[in-house]
Each structure stands twice: as C-alpha cells, then as structure tokens.
C-alpha cells in the first residue's frame, strides 16, 4: 500500500472550527450592483441593501453547529434559516455575506443567488443539509 499526500481531515476541521465554532455571526445582503466577494476581508456597508425594516449589518445567524468531519471533508452550516422579517428591499439584491462579529466582522463567505426583490414581506434563506456533500461551507 503506497503513501498518499494530502491535508488531513482533522486539520481542515480544526481550521474551520477556529473561525466558526461558537462565533457570533451575522448575515448582510448586497445589491446586484455591488462588488462584494471573497476579497472583502470584513463586513462592508458599501453596496449593502437598504429599505424598510432592514438594519445595516443585517441579521443574526444562528450558530449552534460545530465544524463536522466526514472522511477528509470538513463542513459547517448555520443551524437555522436566516430571516429578514417584514422588509421592503425594492432594489435588486443577489448575495449574502456571512461574517463574524466575534472576530472584527471577518468576512467568512459571500453566497450568491438569483436577483431578487422583496416588498412588504419576509425573506427567508433556508440552509442546505449540514453534511460533507451539501454543507454551506466545506473544506474538501
């Protein structure tokens, strides 16, 4: 049996755990016209949506899951849907930044989806199944 090269699963899990486990997280929405992405180091108000009942900085993200590991893939997903209640966001938006207020608003990731608007309604983002195949954040 030959030796194999690769970063260990436990190392990936430890790295993911360091930035996610027990952290206070928030999610902010961004306009289609914004240029937010992985190069942002922290939450930014530039390009963020605005509207009735939307507060700058977005909403809290429930974080009861800890980084999981299956084989050599570490994974993590918020433990509840992310909800913006009774908002009006009339200018099209298409992304959510997940960031950690525990760590100076560190940008954890930007998730894009199709362009949307909401008027006098509730926006709910439902998470995928938290496992090594579909978890929202995966370190493969």
């Amino acid at each position, binding site marked *: 049996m030959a030796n194999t090269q690769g970063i260990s699963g436990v190392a990936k899990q430890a790295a993911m755990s360091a930035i996610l486990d027990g952290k206070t997280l928030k999610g902010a929405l961004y306009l289609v016209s914004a240029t937010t992405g992985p190069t942002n180091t922290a939450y930014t108000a530039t390009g963020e949506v605005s509207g009735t009942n939307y507060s700058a900085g977005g909403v809290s993200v429930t974080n009861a899951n800890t980084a999981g590991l299956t084989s050599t893939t570490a994974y993590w997903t918020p433990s509840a849907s992310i909800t913006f209640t009774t908002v009006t966001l009339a200018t099209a938006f298409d992304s959510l930044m997940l960031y950690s207020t525990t760590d100076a608003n560190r940008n954890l990731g930007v*998730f894009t989806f199709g362009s949307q608007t909401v008027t006098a309604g*509730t926006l709910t983002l439902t998470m995928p199944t938290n496992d090594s195949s579909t978890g*929202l954040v*995966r370190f493969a």
Partner: protein
Amino acid sequence: MSDPIFTTRGYLPADRVELRKSVTEDGSARYHRTDKFDRVDGAWVGNDLHIELKASLPLFGETGQFS
C-alpha cells in the same frame, strides 16, 4: 383565525389577502415566491420570498511539493 398578513397597506386580515405562489430554480437555489393581492381591489400589495440555498462554498485544501 389566521394571523394578519403584512402588506404595503399594513397588516391586513388573512382572508382579505390572496396569496399566489410560484417556484423557480437555478443552480444556486430554489426560489419560492408568494405574491400578495388585496381582494378588495385586486392590487398587488407585496411579496414574501423563501430561498433554499443549494450551492455551498467548497474550499479545496491543496498541498505543495518539497523542492
């Protein structure tokens, strides 16, 4: 009795608001949109949106080579 529904006209009784649902999908997510209409005059009075995220952010750990 159902809870009142939030609209551009404030909270309206549930039986006054017609809900029309539609579902679309792309590679990133499935979108469940509910458009709200006031039965009094048929006016559109807002929409709810439920986005089921599908796409995760895979981060690939790669190793280099000793030189």
